[in-house]
């Protein structure tokens, strides 16, 4: 990790020095244990702030459409997939960004580790490779990393950047986890059970919109949920409204969601938002043979059609 951090600093420094970019978007150390936080480096003097570790979960591509000037961005596999989609959707100009790609073996889920630590004060973290030894206030636990990678990371099939200008580290082996068995398993449950699960999750939602705002592909100037003419979805936290928001968001992300899991990471009440998005990803793959964020030249599945697309769902009389 230190190697990677150093290499990032080196490359970022070069880019800034040569004036190839105006800003580097990367991570710096977080203010609380088990965290890293996005940072924007404009001066070479600040380069040392840049770090790389297993808490760099945020999808930084989110900041691309907002930031001005030429941008250097530290990007994981999922982040680069988001960049591919953003370029395709004309939100980011390829020539305006320099992608510093970093392979990623998964990011650790701070919230779940904190739960494991009963949210106690942490005074020491010892990284033992596969394990974290965490000590603190009446606290002494060993955390198996494998169990605490984010759910999205556990099924990630693009741990290496799909597109980059500078590659840092070594290519790592990809996981063979692209089968959507989670979706299939869920679909096999009876409808009542699915409804119960989804509503149980959704009922926790407080509509803080962190999921939307953390999503790199949710860049609309005005989200449908904020619109009033018409107000398709009510603003209340009544189940119907909340659920409609999440359904529509998943529909809007269909064929665009790059499965980074930013939505779920941002959610303060840990709603299983990906349950909806994964379904769309599975459908888009199965119905239209499309996987997001891999190829700038491949048209989005909902912007094209084939005359012989599946008609299975059409009522046939």
């Amino acid at each position, binding site marked *: 990790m230190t190697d990677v951090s150093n290499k990032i600093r080196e490359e970022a420094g070069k880019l800034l020095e040569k004036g190839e970019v105006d800003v580097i978007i990367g991570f710096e150390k977080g203010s609380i244990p088990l965290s890293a936080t996005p940072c924007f480096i404009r001066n070479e003097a600040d380069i040392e702030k840049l770090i790389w570790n297993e808490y760099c979960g945020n999808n930084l591509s989110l900041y691309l459409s907002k930031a001005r000037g030429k941008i250097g961005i530290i990007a994981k596999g999922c982040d680069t997939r988001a960049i591919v989609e953003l370029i395709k959707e004309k*939100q980011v100009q390829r020539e305006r960004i320099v992608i510093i790609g970093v392979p990623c073996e998964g990011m650790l889920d701070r919230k779940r580790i904190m739960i494991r630590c009963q949210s106690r004060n942490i005074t020491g973290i010892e990284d033992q490779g596969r394990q974290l030894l965490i000590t603190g206030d009446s606290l002494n636990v060993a955390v198996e990393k494998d169990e605490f990678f984010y759910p999205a990371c556990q099924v990630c099939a693009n741990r290496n950047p799909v597109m980059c200008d500078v590659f840092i580290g070594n290519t790592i082996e990809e996981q063979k986890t692209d089968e959507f068995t989670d979706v299939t398993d869920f679909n096999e449950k009876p409808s009542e059970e699915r409804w119960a699960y989804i509503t149980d999750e959704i009922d926790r939602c407080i509509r803080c919109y962190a999921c939307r705002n953390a999503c790199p592909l949710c860049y*609309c100037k005005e989200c449908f949920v904020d619109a009033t003419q*018409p107000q398709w979805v009510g603003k209340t936290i009544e189940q119907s409204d909340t659920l409609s928001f999440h359904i529509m968001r998943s529909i*809007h992300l269909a064929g665009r969601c790059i499965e980074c899991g930013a939505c779920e990471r941002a959610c303060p009440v840990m709603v299983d938002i990906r349950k909806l998005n994964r379904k769309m990803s599975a459908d888009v793959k199965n119905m239209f043979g499309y996987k997001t964020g891999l190829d700038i030249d491949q048209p989005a599945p909902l*912007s094209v059609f084939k005359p012989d697309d599946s008609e299975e769902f059409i009522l046939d009389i």
Partner: protein
Amino acid sequence: MSSTRITGAVLVVGGGIGGIQSSLDLAESGFKVYLVEKSPAIGGTMPQLDKTFPTNDCSMCILSPKLVECGRHLNIEILTNAELKGISGKPGNFKAVIEQKPRYVAMDKCTGCGDCAEKCPVKLPDLFNKGLSQRKAIFRLFEQAYPPTFAIEKEACLECGICARHCAAEAIDFEMEPNTLEINIGSIILSPGFEEFDAGLIANYGYGIFKNVITSIEFERILSASGPYQGQLLRPSDMKPPQRIAWIQCVGSRDIHKVNNNYCSAVCCTYAIKEAVVAKEHSSTDLNTTIFYIDIRTYGKGFENYYERAKEEHGVRFVKSEIHRIYRDENENLILRFSENNKIKEEEFDLVVLSVGVTQSEANQELAKTLGIQLNQHGFCRVEDFSPVSTSRAGIFTAGVFSEPKDIPETVMAASAAAGEASGILAAARHTLARDKEYPQEKNIIGEKPRIGIFICHCGINIGSVVDISAVKDYAATLQNVVFVEDSLFTCSQDSQQKIKERIEEHNLNRVVVAACTPRTHEPLFQETLRETGLNKYLFEMANIRDQCSWVHQGQPEKATEKAKDLIRMSVAKAKLIEPLFQTNLEVNHSALVVGGGISGMVSALTVARQGFKVHVIEKSSRFGGIANNIYSTIEGFDVQVYLKELIDEVSNNPLIHLYTEAEILDVSGYVGNFKTRLVIGAGKEEKEITHGVVVIASGGDIYKPNEYLYGNNPNVFSLIELEGEIAKKNNLISTSRNIVLIQCIGSRDDERSYCSRTCCSKAVKLSLELKKLNPDVNIYVLYRDIRTYGFKEQYYLEAREKGVLFIPYDVSDKPEVEAISKEGKDFIKVTVNDLILNESFSIDADILALATAIIPSPDSKKLAGLFKVPLDENGFFMEAHIKLRPVDFPTEGVFVCGLAHSPKLITESIIQAKAAASRACIILSRDKIESGATVSTINKDKCSGCGMCMELCPFIAIEIDGEDNTATVNEALCKGCGVCASSCRCGAVDIMGFTNNEIYSMIKNGAFGVLE
């Protein structure tokens, strides 16, 4: 010629698709049109068809908007039940006498409700359904007929008066008299259509005696959802679903033995395939469908694929065998005897469909006599190869099947071409007789609180007898913003319209809701009324409480009443939100750009120039003429080179035509009415910018260069087109040859190019005849898969066989093989072929081998498609907007296509299409301004994030992403208002005027719950 001496009106005879197309084209380009139709409604044959090949489009669905458009056109006067009885005068100034039989139903009163027919006691065979069902003496030809009014068949009518008593609109008038009209016109277009061959003439088939032997058109009616059996596949004898259906091809066509018809009817092969495929779709079991044929002639665009799919995917069986007689058993099943794989077989079928050909009726021949125009030997209107829509009498043109058997798109093309020819001679009188209606100044109601008036129609007893109108009225009055509610017996009647106008004034209404029948037929009428009061016509909304309520819930009056209330509440909810909409006017540049200087391009250019517009023709090579430079005669014997020279001279000397050779397009910008094209011209690469209003793409095609059959490696192997050149050059080799072999379908109908190149069979026949003429002793072998000499070209095939040309069928899986050999110091090409009929292999030592090489898309097509934003089909030819009804248009307005760029075709066909494309283009050029639609897409730039989804999905390429602020912009001139953009915009930035999200949302909110809850 001064314009006062030319009459700016055209008479179109025949209200089929051809007549409709001619009428619309002419009326749209500023001429008055009289459309004379002998039956009570326009539509012709298309309404009788179930589906259309090769896309299986619903025939009625695609026709119906044209019927309405034609019916409502201010400058088209439809004369039904009418016949042309005589003409006098000369081109530009004819006088026509028309006899109109009475309808006995007043068209201005009849509302089309159908009460009369329900009560009429007289039943007679419904000829529209070919007698497979019955109708009444007072009738409407078919449900979607235009005019939608009823008519009485006087011969069958008892004059009992029951209908008159039940007609609440008092439209029935037994006293009506025949009417003779005299009209002044400048030109005439004849598209009287055809008559199906009378299958009864072939006694061996038992048609008319065997109940289960039917004609193809009868079968169409059986398949049709609105047909006699409501679309159920049943056979007439026992009304049971057939399991085995046979089609017999060439009934009345290609037959000089049983009947004297030596032409091919051109459409029957493909329609039989269509019927077999559709029948299979209709059948719940695995239907056995067998087509007995001589040659399968699927030569049209997309047809060969269709044929292959029918065989491979749908399992339609094809048997190459003539059927001489049909036998019937006691169960009314039918037994056919035929040969398959060289064995004589007998097979039983439940139903036999006779693929009847097209012929010309006595009436049509009579018409020709009346007008003094010549017919050809087949009884069809005589036309010549290079003037294929002109009759023998100047000023009279023809379209459709009157001149040769044709399918729908060919008919439509010919119709547009004929319209173009008529416009050409009447150009000086354009806009002299066509009218524009004047309306009062529109009131500005923006910002006003909605004041909604509701008019509820009883439609005689059609609505009132089911829906409790007074309850609905009371309810409607309670709705917010409703200031006035009134009911009337017929809201659509003349006096009701007057009343609506008065109410609008009295109550200062600024929105009108009519609860009556369907907006599809009546919205324009009410909108017109609104306009006459100075209200914007879009401040109107309709609740369909008849077609979709009272008529379909007759036994449930309470529920129907409840539904009517809901529908009105929904309409009012929308009406509250609707705003006036405006059309934008765009200036039109009155010149055309023609891409391609072959025959198609030059004919297009001339047609445009004859109508008085400037044309720029760009040709990439240094010479005009295109592929035709290598063609010497047509199969009919007309000299192509002479024609070509005349054409080039005419084009070169026309002051309105500007020619550019060695020209290449750099880029194209703009849209319909206002294109800008940058070129580099000539060897000097001079840059030039052309502004133009329309584009005709006539970029031609190319000839396939085979890698097979020693082509290019042996001096005695030619393509057909090269052979034609050698004949013209009088090459010694030709006159000294003893054996000449022609192999058909080289590079066509194979895995790489699945289409048929259409022209090669005719060319092979033509060349064979020429070779035989040069040397009657030469042996000519034509190795073929199907001989596709469709239409009148069939007679030359017959002639070639009579002259001893040997036609040897081969199977595509067992292609002929060739080998260069030397015998006795002479070089030969040894051709070995397995004759499919004799099932034996033999070899020919040929002096000359000629290959019927495919016609392939021009290599420039792809670039042009990108420049003009128009699509190519899977084979690389340009893809028209609609394969049936818009054969020269593109989805992108203002761009047209013709000739080989569109698909392989003969010169005559290219000429028709070129004239058609030019004629369609002139509709735009004839206007000073283009009115864009009002119900178009609109972008809220504040919300748009410029992702481009709408742009990618727009079928009309009407949306672009503005580079500067990365937001979408709609070109209203191109937008058709489908709404694909609006439904796909995640940001909610796109909306469709007249169908806004807000309007639909409020309808949903008001429709999702009921009054009684």
